[in-house]
């Protein structure tokens, strides 16, 4: 059952990470690349590299049949999908299973179930995991006010048939409902021909928190603590940390229980992440979704628990029992990751591919860099712009933020425009230092301030 040769079908830093993790376990790594990635680190370090097709992803990394054909033709008994690309495409997991290739991830049916938003919510509900509270049909102002009293203000009142913000409003008091309800329901009738309204808790001050889980496929599940990924731009995470220092321990323990209960109910296999909205004002958590793969930000969980999660993926997929109990996964210290991107933060984040003429990342205590780049590497223009992840570890969040700011100062990358100026700015922003953040902070406060700052 143990894996002897794996096909790595992703690119960039995760491909290098997968190749190195496999090799550390004595597993041969074959790297599948597009022609643009022939000189990548994963290609250089793999035991064998094969060229799938041209640079375009859909003719290389996004073709499930081509990947499984390659795995079979190179004698691989396993396939690691990385993140992004086809990592959460049930069809790839299915195709692997059909051809006797171990897919390093959850079972195809798990991926399919969790990929369907409604089904994922039904699974969460059945496992007793809290969702954003809401109501069924609301008929009139009085009923709305009664419901809002129960949910607690602010609430969001929406048209069932709605979309694009029409027939929708936020109410912070009974007066707001009285003033807005009829207008919204009229708007809904006009726009959609249906004035059915309902109500949800409105989360004004939200953090994105998520729990790293691992399952053995037979119901035994453990977690590796939570991550706080509240600093986002266009739903792209920029900084991620573990633990979520802003969360009280009692709520943290609810969070962990909710996450493990959910995946245990699926007999979840391999690595996954359960994402939640953390409503800071109400001190409540609401399920968002499950990501059925290893994530970009997994290193912060590795740093605070001491486990190599990609190696653990290989071990579990290779049939090793999951011998760990939760008590053996203590969370220690604090870790923050930030994403280094080849993009111009002064010009609307436009991508800036090209050749790296000087690659001088920082080194030192608690400084880890996960990257596929090196002196002279050409960042191709065909794919996403991430060139590395800087992961900082220290005993406390405070020390970690200080170390992060210093490490970013020492980071030298020549030949490309990168988002380093923004990362440095955020690392020294008082809101970041004092952990006064939420999911809207970067777009509402951080970026505008950064723009002002540069003048």
């Amino acid at each position, binding site marked *: 059952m143990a894996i002897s*040769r794996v096909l790595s079908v992703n690119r960039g830093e995760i491909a290098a990470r997968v190749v190195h993790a496999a090799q550390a376990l004595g597993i*041969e790594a*074959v790297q*599948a690349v*597009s*022609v643009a990635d*022939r*000189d990548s680190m994963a290609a250089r370090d793999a*035991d*064998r*590299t*094969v*060229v*799938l*097709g*041209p*640079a*375009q992803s*859909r*003719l*290389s990394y996004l*073709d499930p*049949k*081509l990947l*499984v*054909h*390659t795995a*079979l*033709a*190179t*004698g691989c008994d396993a396939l690691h999908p990385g993140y992004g690309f086809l990592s959460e495409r049930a069809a790839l997991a299915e*195709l692997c299973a059909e051809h006797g290739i171990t897919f390093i991830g959850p079972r195809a049916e798990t991926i399919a179930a969790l990929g369907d938003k409604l089904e994922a919510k039904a699974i969460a509900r059945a496992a007793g995991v809290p969702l954003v509270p809401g109501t069924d049909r609301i008929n009139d102002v009085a009923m709305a006010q009664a419901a809002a009293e129960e949910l607690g203000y602010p609430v969001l009142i929406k048209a069932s048939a709605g979309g694009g913000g029409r027939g929708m409003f936020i109410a912070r008091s009974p007066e707001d409902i009285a003033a807005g309800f009829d207008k919204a329901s009229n708007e809904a009738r006009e726009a959609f021909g249906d004035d059915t309204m309902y109500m949800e808790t409105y989360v004004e001050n939200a953090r994105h928190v998520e729990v790293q889980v691992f399952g053995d496929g037979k119901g035994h599940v453990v977690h590796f603590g939570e991550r706080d990924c509240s600093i986002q731009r266009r739903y792209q995470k920029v900084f991620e940390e573990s633990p979520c220092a802003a969360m009280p321990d009692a709520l943290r323990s609810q969070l962990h229980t909710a996450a493990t209960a959910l995946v245990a109910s699926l007999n979840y296999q391999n690595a996954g992440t359960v994402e939640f909205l953390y409503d800071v004002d109400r001190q409540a958590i609401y399920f968002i979704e499950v990501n059925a793969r290893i994530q970009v930000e997994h290193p912060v969980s590795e740093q605070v628990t001491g486990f190599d999660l990609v190696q653990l993926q290989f071990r579990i997929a290779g049939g090793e029992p999951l011998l760990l109990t939760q008590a053996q996964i203590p969370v220690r210290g604090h870790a923050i990751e930030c994403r280094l991107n080849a*993009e111009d933060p002064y*010009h*609307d*984040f*436009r*991508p*800036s*591919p*090209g*050749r790296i003429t000087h690659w001088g990342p920082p080194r030192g205590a608690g400084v880890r860099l996960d990257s596929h780049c090196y002196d002279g590497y*050409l960042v*191709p*223009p*065909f794919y996403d*712009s991430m060139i590395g992840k800087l992961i900082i570890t220290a005993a406390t969040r405070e020390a970690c933020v200080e170390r992060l700011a210093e490490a970013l100062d020492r980071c030298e990358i020549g030949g490309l425009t990168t988002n380093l100026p923004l990362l440095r700015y955020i690392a020294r922003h008082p809101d970041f230092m004092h952990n006064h953040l939420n999911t809207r902070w970067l777009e509402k406060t951080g970026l505008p301030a950064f723009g002002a700052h540069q003048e």
Partner: protein
Amino acid sequence: MSTGKQTPVKAGDIESLIEIFKQSDWDEMHVQVGDFELFLSNDPQATGPARASAAAPAALAPAAAPAAATPAAAKPAAAAPTGEAPVPDGMLVIRAPNLGTFYRAPKPGAPAYVEVGQVIEPDTEVCLIEVMKLFAPVRAGIAGTVREIRARDGQMVEFDQVLIIVEPAD
């Protein structure tokens, strides 16, 4: 597929193109040289130009498929394309449009599409490339006389690997 006649695009060229784009005010740049295609955009949501269907025709498999295409688990060795034998001067090549299994004949036992010495036209089908039982015929794209068949029947070929060497018709 690309042929030996085309000017190969080098990494240095890509860099120059990126540089030109950076210096410009353009929002998008799309360069196509033969098989090579470069799409640059300032819009991170851009998904690239519509796919030109210039590569190998996606013909369906013939009724009787060649024998099972999975080579035995061989010891990994250096990838072929980078280390492949040089192409003799003045010759053209037909390259693999993607990774897949190379077949010389439309089905087992049938005559090969082409033999050494045979004269071919751009439209001549010269081999099959199979990916998971999907058999795509490869057309020559060039005219001339087949001088060497480099790829071996039933073996995996990689993208851009030299399959057939052709002496150009002149």
